[in-house]
């Protein structure tokens, strides 16, 4: 049991610190660590090393090598550095390596040494060169702060959304500050710098001098400063060998410790756990490591070789050429269990051996203990174990893991291309497919399409085999990635697996496969999408090709025509022309004629229409249009001569108007000219004359020749004008077929009955009978009934 507490070191009365090995490193470094520029990402992240040749003047000709390792020392990438001198390295929160060059250009690399992008920190930096640079992390992302040769600071709080901020000048600053760091207060990044015995705080508006409360006198220079992981605390190392610890706001002092070493430390970092009351900093010199807190004594370790400190959320990682260790405050829970002579319940349970067994065993004694948290903890421990494995090399503690969240951890596994492990974890934790397995498969597929040595067919097939119809996987996203790598054919193959045709369209457009995009848009049934593609095509193709494409896609064609009808009439005409659609072209010109104000314009437009109809072999429409032109011209002449409105009347109404105005001759001329059929003319005249109540003329007209519409209409129309007298005149001339009807119309029921009886027509008899009302027609009704009875007897 004693092994548990063997590496515990007390600091003061209440806290223990322990240091244990995470990995033994066999990364075979060629140089001492001190000869490298070093950057290690927090949360057990990767380590980047760049041999720093620019400090030694002679070696400038040799191209240095940039190496990237996992936390366990497994090589991830190695590349020759071909760009300019680098001042500083750092990892972003997305585990991208930022390399700050002397000229202020920041090059961004992926975990596997793949170049991503670059950006510049501005002209001022370029001119004055970079003296020093820091990469820092806030809740907004990862930032870069730069100290230029002119002793000015430039800062960007988020490299993902680059906004450069030049900090105000520090008055009277002639040389580089002895040390500086970034603070983050009230969501604003500030710079704290030390110049001789003075401290200055720079924010984007002003520079103000600050004094740490309760600092022992006699300080003439600050040698090192450190801000805690959460930006809450600050530690200052003075040239008097004193370490001041307080809040980052510089309002409160926590404690002060004099280590009696005046040599400037190589590194100083905070070492504390979230929710712990203990505060401590770790200070490293060449061969000595010291843990200092609010206690009269410090803990001291000897460093056997060059070491590098990486601050973490709940401790400090320390790596060197041969080992990788973790130094942290012993958690209260462990303390209670393992502390010598502890009487805490956990300690008693230890009788049941290991932690896991203890819990598992103890659980049985508690009836109402819900098993969920126990199960969850076991799962978490298993995940942590798996990723801490030497081959994976992500040494996370439980609190780091919880802070990072499983989603980010999965992202990081994906970033390391550890797809199978990520999927296993998803399945083990039973994460929903969309967040878990499918997402990882999609990432895998995006990686797969970058493998240029595999043929398009094989990649597409492999991806489809693995992904199948997994929900939440977007083939179009993967295809977009393939296109991004210049593999258009592969992208098209992948798009074919995309079940939602609408999703295929944007990428197809981007790849200039517009015609294919059009078919897919049409397939999707989304007219808006079709329209988008159409406009794209319109700009991309020449007019002829565009129209040809439309011609083969009737759905798109109708859509575009509808648009043109309202917005681009000329295009509509061109469309019909292109298609030799003379029929529609004719209709188009007729419609256009209505927009013409002047009659000449109208006639001209109609002429064009008529020509088009002839071309369309639609003789009827052509003739009708010519008639319309003729009518228009004639109407205008009538207007000039008779001084009243004729335009836009139909032929029928024109003739009627002439008759009503008494221009019978003209009316007849017009009827002849336009070959108005007799029947119509008779109806027309009859109605017009009756309207005029010109009964004499009507009678003359009725006798002009045999009526082609018979004489019943005369009866009807006279009755409509309530002229029974005239109606009766015509009733006598109505033929036998319609006689009964005519007689009934004029109200002569008795005679109607006689005719019906004579004609022995049953239908007519019923009709008359239905008109027999009241007493007056009683006799008639009887007569009909008798006739019916007689007919039946026969």
């Amino acid at each position: 049991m004693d092994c548990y507490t063997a590496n515990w070191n007390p600091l003061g009365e209440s806290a223990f610190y322990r240091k244990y090995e995470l990995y033994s490193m066999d990364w075979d470094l060629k140089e001492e660590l001190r000869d490298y520029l070093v950057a290690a990402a927090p949360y057990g992240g990767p380590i980047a090393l760049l041999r720093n040749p620019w400090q030694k003047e002679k070696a400038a000709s040799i191209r240095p090598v940039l190496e990237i390792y996992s936390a366990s020392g497994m090589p991830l990438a190695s590349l020759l550095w071909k760009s300019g001198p680098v001042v500083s390295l750092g990892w972003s929160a997305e585990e991208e390596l930022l390399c700050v060059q002397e000229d202020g250009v920041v090059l961004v690399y992926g975990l596997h040494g793949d170049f991503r992008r670059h950006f510049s920190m501005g002209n001022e930096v370029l001119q004055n060169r970079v003296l020093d640079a820091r990469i820092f992390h806030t809740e907004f992302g990862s930032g870069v702060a730069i100290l230029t040769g002119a002793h000015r600071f430039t800062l960007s709080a988020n490299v993902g959304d680059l906004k450069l901020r030049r900090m105000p000048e520090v008055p009277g600053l002639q040389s580089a500050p002895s040390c500086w760091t970034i603070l983050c207060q009230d969501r604003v990044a500030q710079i704290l710098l030390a110049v001789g015995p003075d401290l200055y705080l720079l924010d984007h508006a002003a520079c103000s001098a600050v004094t740490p409360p309760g600092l022992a006198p006699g300080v003439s220079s600050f040698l090192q400063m450190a801000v805690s992981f959460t930006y809450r605390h600050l530690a200052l190392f003075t040239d008097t060998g004193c370490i001041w610890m307080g809040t980052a706001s510089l309002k409160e002092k926590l404690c002060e410790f004099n280590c009696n070493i005046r040599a400037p430390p190589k590194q100083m970092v905070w070492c504390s756990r979230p929710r712990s009351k203990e505060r401590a900093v770790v200070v490293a010199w060449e061969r000595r490591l010291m843990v200092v807190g609010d206690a009269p004594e410090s803990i001291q370790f000897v460093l056997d070789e060059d070491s590098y400190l990486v601050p973490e959320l709940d401790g400090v990682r320390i790596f060197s050429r041969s080992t990788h260790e973790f130094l942290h405050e012993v958690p209260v829970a462990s303390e209670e269990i393992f502390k010598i002579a502890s009487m805490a319940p956990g300690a008693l349970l230890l009788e049941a051996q290991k932690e896991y067994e203890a819990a598992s065993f103890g659980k049985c004694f508690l009836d109402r203990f819900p098993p969920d948290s126990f199960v969850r903890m076991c799962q978490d421990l298993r995940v942590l174990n798996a990723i801490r494995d030497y081959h994976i090399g992500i040494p996370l503690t439980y609190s780091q893991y919880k802070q990072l969240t499983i989603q980010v951890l999965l992202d990081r596994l994906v970033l390391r291309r550890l797809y199978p492990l990520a999927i296993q974890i998803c399945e083990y934790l039973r994460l929903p497919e969309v967040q878990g397995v499918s997402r990882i498969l999609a990432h895998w597929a995006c990686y797969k399409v970058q493998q240029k040595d595999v043929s398009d067919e094989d990649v597409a097939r492999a991806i489809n085999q693995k992904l199948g119809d997994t929900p939440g996987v977007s083939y179009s996203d993967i295809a977009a990635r393939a296109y991004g790598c210049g593999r258009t054919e592969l992208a098209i193959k992948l798009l074919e697996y995309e079940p939602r045709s609408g999703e295929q369209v944007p990428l197809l457009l981007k790849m200039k496969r517009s015609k294919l995009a059009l078919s897919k848009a049409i397939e999707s049934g989304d007219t808006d999408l079709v329209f988008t593609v159409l406009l794209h095509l319109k700009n991309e193709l020449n007019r002829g090709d565009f129209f040809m494409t439309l011609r083969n896609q009737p759905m798109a064609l109708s859509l575009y025509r509808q648009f043109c009808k309202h917005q681009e009439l000329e295009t509509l005409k061109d469309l019909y022309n292109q298609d030799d659609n003379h029929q529609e072209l004719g209709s188009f010109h007729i419609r256009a004629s209505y927009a013409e104000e002047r009659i000449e314009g109208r006639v001209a437009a109609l002429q064009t229409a008529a020509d088009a109809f002839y071309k369309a072999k639609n003789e009827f429409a052509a003739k009708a249009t010519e008639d319309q032109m003729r009518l228009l011209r004639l109407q205008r002449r009538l207007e000039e001569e008779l001084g009243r409105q004729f335009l836009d009347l139909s032929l029928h109404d024109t003739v009627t108007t002439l008759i009503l105005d008494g221009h019978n001759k003209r009316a007849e001329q017009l009827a002849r000219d336009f070959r108005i059929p007799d029947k119509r003319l008779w109806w027309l005249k009859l109605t017009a004359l009756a309207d005029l109540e010109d009964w004499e003329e009507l009678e003359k007209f009725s006798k002009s020749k045999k009526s082609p519409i018979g004489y019943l209409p005369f009866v009807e129309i006279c009755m409509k004008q309530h002229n029974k007298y005239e109606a009766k005149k015509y009733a006598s001339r109505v033929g036998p077929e319609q006689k009964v009807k005519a007689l009934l119309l004029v109200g002569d029921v008795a005679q109607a009955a006689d005719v019906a009886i004579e004609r022995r027509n049953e239908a007519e008899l019923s009709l008359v009978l239905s008109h027999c009302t009241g007493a007056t027609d009683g006799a008639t009704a009887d007569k009909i009934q008798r006739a019916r009875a007689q007919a039946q007897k026969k």
Partner: protein
Amino acid sequence: MSFPHRPDAPELPDFSMLKRLARDQLIYLLEQLPGRKDLFIEADLMSPLDRIANVSILKQHEVDKLYKVENRPALSSSEQLCFLVRPRIKNVRYIASLVNADKLAGRTRKYKVIFSPQKFYACEMVLEEEGIFGDVSCDEWAFSLLPLDVDLLSMELPEFFRDYFLEGDQRWINTVAQALHLLSTLYGPFPNCYGIGRCAKMSYELWRKLEEEEDGETKGRRPEIGHIFLLDRDVDFVTALCSQVVYEGLVDDTFRIKCGSVDFGPEITSSDKSLKVLLNAEDKVFSEIRNEHFSNVFGFLSQKARNLQAQYDRRRGMDIKQMKNFVSQELKGLKQEHRLLSLHIGACESIMKKKTKQDFQELIKTEHALLEGFRVRESTSYIEEHIDRQVSPIESLRLMCLLSITENGLIPKDYRSLKTQYLQSYGPEHLLTFSNLRRAGLLTEQAPGDTLTAVESRVSKLVTDKAAGKITDAFSSLAKRSNFRAISKKLNLIPRVDGEYDLKVPRDMAYVFSGAYVPLSCRVIEQVLERRSWQGLDEVLRLLNCSELAFADVAKEDKASSESLRLILVVFLGGCTFSEISALRFLGREKGYRFIFLTTAVTNSARLLEAMSEVKA
């Protein structure tokens, strides 16, 4: 007299939820423009809007003044203008003209455009072209289903008919799919789906896609409505072209029912004012006569009047206490009934007057002759006379179309002469109307043998070419024949009548057309529901030119309750008539079903033909 529902008839789902949803969404959108604002409403949206949110609700949400969208400068002095419009380019241009006029005058206001039921990319394009894309904010009011009655949902999109069936524009199909998706989220999935027509098929497929993309939501739900049947208007133009003789249809033909209500003029209200009357199941008098053949309505109303009088008369023998009871409990109801009764009697009188004037009987006789295929020459002369006498442009057109469809197109001689006569009577601009009617397949020429015109043969080749896939209906109609006579025989649409058809006790759905004709659309629905598939209807489908365009997707095992399986949602794409609604209500009563109707708009012959007409602007 009125037909009661069978006791086992299923309950209808509560569609008022759709209204509440639409209202809440509108309020939310109005609140997006905080502060006082003037609201510009497109004329077509006014009545539907009124059914969702009345003026006082709008005022509550800081709408100051209401304007109609019309082509003239806005008088509004408000600092914020909100437009509620259909997604039409015309409207966008109007809005652009307002905004640009403000800009010229150096005036800045806030503009918000709410497109209903959705916005189209083309509209935003026009905003951009007019240079005001950044000045206005756009929103969508996804209000696509207005419950006009307990069993009738309307999308209030009359333009659907012309856009799709004439122009071949498919933009509304997505709207239909969205509406169906909404229904299935609210009322559970539809276990059995049937449909006929290209538009029906496309809407169905798009709707399915939507459901798949958002699956999970409806999966677990129990279906409330067991069947859905989608039908394209062009499957059956004949029914829509017939004169309506069932009361509700006749009221629609005569007075035009707009958004579920009708304006009765002074001659009906027997006062000096017009009255807007809501016609739905809540009107107790109307609900008893709406599905009746007109010949029965008058008798029924007078009987009702006598009963009412008798109830009034009861008070003569009452003592004070009884009288008190009567006044407090019955009198109000009686008065209300009295009011409604006198309105409907007034309407009946007015209808009779109008109908006898133009010799309605003759007209109906001609229609029946056309449906039966007898005395075609006589009917043709009748139509010619109709045109010569300038009876009514739309009526003449209707008869011509009816003749064309029932006869598989007009013979070339008639085609030419009738058109010539029509142009002479009603004006030359109708040349374009004829071109439209031909394109939609409503008025065509009998093709002499196989000599199709060049255009036709090219298009028909495209139609048969499966690769062409979703070719527009507008073109395909050119190449298809109506085959009405053969279909009529196959489906027995003209009932054999021995003696008089008793319209008081209807035997079949033919009663809605005086016993002369069973509506084709309703017969197809009846047949498919009976078999739960299209089996045995291959020949009918071929005649309807829909062999590839009919589908049935029937649940293998019915998880739906027997109650829900007797509820059927019929979706009419391109509009349905009140006669069809009455016919299916009758069928429902006979078979113990209940039908629910969803239509892009309620239509009738006049609306259909007006949509096809070209009138000079």
